[in-house]
């Protein structure tokens, strides 16, 4: 649209204003990345700290735990968010509005409160012991990280996918049915196919949110080195003992990892990669 408008001559003042707002926002995003890098490069101990962090087995383990838990959480999360988002978008049954409101709870609840509440549920009610009895240990266990990440980020994914399904014309699947498709086949071949950008966007968002969670993770599984410590918790602990360079070193690693995954998602998104970026950005 901007290209069309500018091709007619001077861009309208409103677009110039929007451009300025976007430029200021982008300045801060790029600014913090450059500031981190410059700070570490300029401080004598910065580069040493970065190299030391990379070679530290505890840090490498935290990176590994962060990566696998985020990935597993995102996959579990999207497999919940797709049906949940579809149902909230298209479902016409009693209680759908209540369910819609419940989905928002993890979004509006402070993450730390969510982690503490989950701890109470598992340690002060029958839920934890019951799951333990069948061999499922979550508290102070890496599986607990996945649980916390999944429970929180799925709400965001569901909300995004509800919006995606809202934007897909229900007549697409209706026409597919009249053409001879079953309802299930129509969902997978038409509706979900049309929603694929939204699904990829939700997956990436859930993965990124999972990677960044630390408050509820610390509250539920703690931060045991070489076991339940993830990168954000290690960063938080480094900051607490005033090791800014160490925290920033971890931060830069997280930035590189996150940007790589976003780039990969865009490449996988193919011709619609811009759409993925748009939705993720929102």
């Amino acid at each position: 649209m901007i290209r069309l408008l500018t091709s007619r001559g001077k861009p309208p003042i409103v677009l110039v204003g929007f451009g300025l707002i976007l430029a200021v926002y982008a300045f801060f995003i790029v600014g913090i990345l450059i500031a981190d890098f410059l700070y570490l490069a300029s401080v004598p101990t910065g580069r040493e700290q970065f190299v030391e962090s990379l070679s530290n087995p505890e840090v490498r383990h935290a990176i590994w735990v962060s990566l696998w838990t985020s990935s597993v959480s995102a996959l579990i999360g999207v497999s919940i968010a797709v049906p949940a988002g579809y149902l909230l978008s298209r479902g016409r049954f009693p209680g759908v509005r209540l369910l819609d409101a419940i989905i928002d709870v993890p979004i509006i609840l402070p993450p730390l409160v969510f982690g503490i509440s989950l701890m109470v549920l598992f340690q002060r009610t029958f839920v934890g012991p019951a799951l333990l009895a069948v061999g499922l240990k979550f508290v102070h266990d890496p599986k607990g990280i996945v649980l916390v990440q999944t429970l929180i980020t799925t709400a965001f994914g569901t909300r995004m996918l509800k919006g995606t399904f809202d934007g897909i014309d229900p007549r697409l699947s209706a026409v597919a049915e009249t053409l001879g498709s079953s309802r299930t086949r129509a969902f997978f071949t038409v509706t979900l196919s049309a929603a694929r950008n939204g699904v990829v966007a939700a997956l990436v968002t859930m993965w990124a949110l999972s990677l960044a969670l630390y408050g509820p993770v610390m509250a539920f599984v703690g931060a045991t080195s070489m076991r339940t410590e993830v990168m954000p918790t290690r960063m938080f602990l480094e900051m607490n003992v005033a090791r800014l360079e160490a925290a920033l070193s971890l931060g830069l690693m997280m930035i590189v990892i996150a940007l790589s995954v976003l780039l990969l998602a865009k490449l996988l998104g193919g011709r619609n990669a811009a759409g993925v970026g748009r939705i993720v950005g929102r």
Partner: protein
Amino acid sequence: MLEVTNLEVAAGVFRLRGVDLTIPESSYGVLLGPPGAGKSVLIETICGLRRPTAGRILLHGRDIVDLEPRDRCIGYVPQDYALFPTKRVWDNVVYGLRARGMSQREANTEAMPFVEMMGIGHLLDRWPATLSGGEQQRVALARALATRPRLLLLDEPVSALDEGSRDRVCRDLRRLQRNLGITTLHISHNLEEAFSVADMAAVLNDGRIVQAGSIETLVRKPRTAFVAHFLRAENVLEGTADESVVRIGAITLPAIGSQRGVISCMIRPESIGLSATPSAAGNGAVAVAAVVERRTDRGAFVRVDLDARGVPLVVHASHRDWAGVRVESGATVWALIDPGAVHVLQPDEPAVSVATSLPSPESLIAAIGKENRDRERQSVTAGSYREPANA
């Protein structure tokens, strides 16, 4: 053949009520009605996307109400064509065949005649978003026809096209339907569309069929004032009738029909004669003095707008008749009305004030909805109106 019998459908607060509709085998039917009349609800119910609360839908004699949409053998082309956006044109066209279990090779062979018929061979690798409205329509038709449906449902198929393309596309649709011999139901709110394609038509309003029959019947003998106005009839007038006369404003005619009290009637503009003197009235025609307000040459005829002492009349006079009375605007002529040409409209519609122009659909819907609430349900079948018991 499609037979819809006493169909009742609830769609939110909207209701289809006692819909009876018959489209004969291999015929092209048009369902007319203003926006919000329930046309799309009816078509969606026929193809199985909505479940009726009562009634039957027979397709070639078989009740299909309990069948899933995929088992009905109905080709459905929605208003915006609903092409699958993540599939290329070719995958759209063969979708139904693949869904029915055909191999890719079989589907290709099966779909190719329709690709050629619709002239979309050059579009097969394109994405739907890159197609024009006309191209999308042809792809949607090829997709619907490829499964060899027994009934084709077209929901406002030309509404998304520009004015210039509509006539051509309507002719193409008609030719296609004739070539394939497929029973077709086409939804429209446009009279010209109906004229150009229909073997028969039905008018739907406020969830019920008001009249069905041939286009000619609908135009010449509209059943109600609503139908008359919807079909843009001229001279739809309101008057009062007693045992001996009918009074329409200052016009007095001999008694027509059996209705008494307030009546609505229609006088076709071509059935009103014009004369310079009242003595020309013969064969029982009534001569009414009227002032010429405007004259417009419409090519095949001359449209003359008259004011007959407060009653607006429109006359479509032949050029020869007009030559006999040729007068300037403001002059007085005699309108010759044959009482036999006065068509009395059914009284079960709202009182429509004297008007010669098409009222807004919203006002008609509001007015008719109010009147209809307490009225006994009436129904029509194609070409034959079943009178209510108390009529």
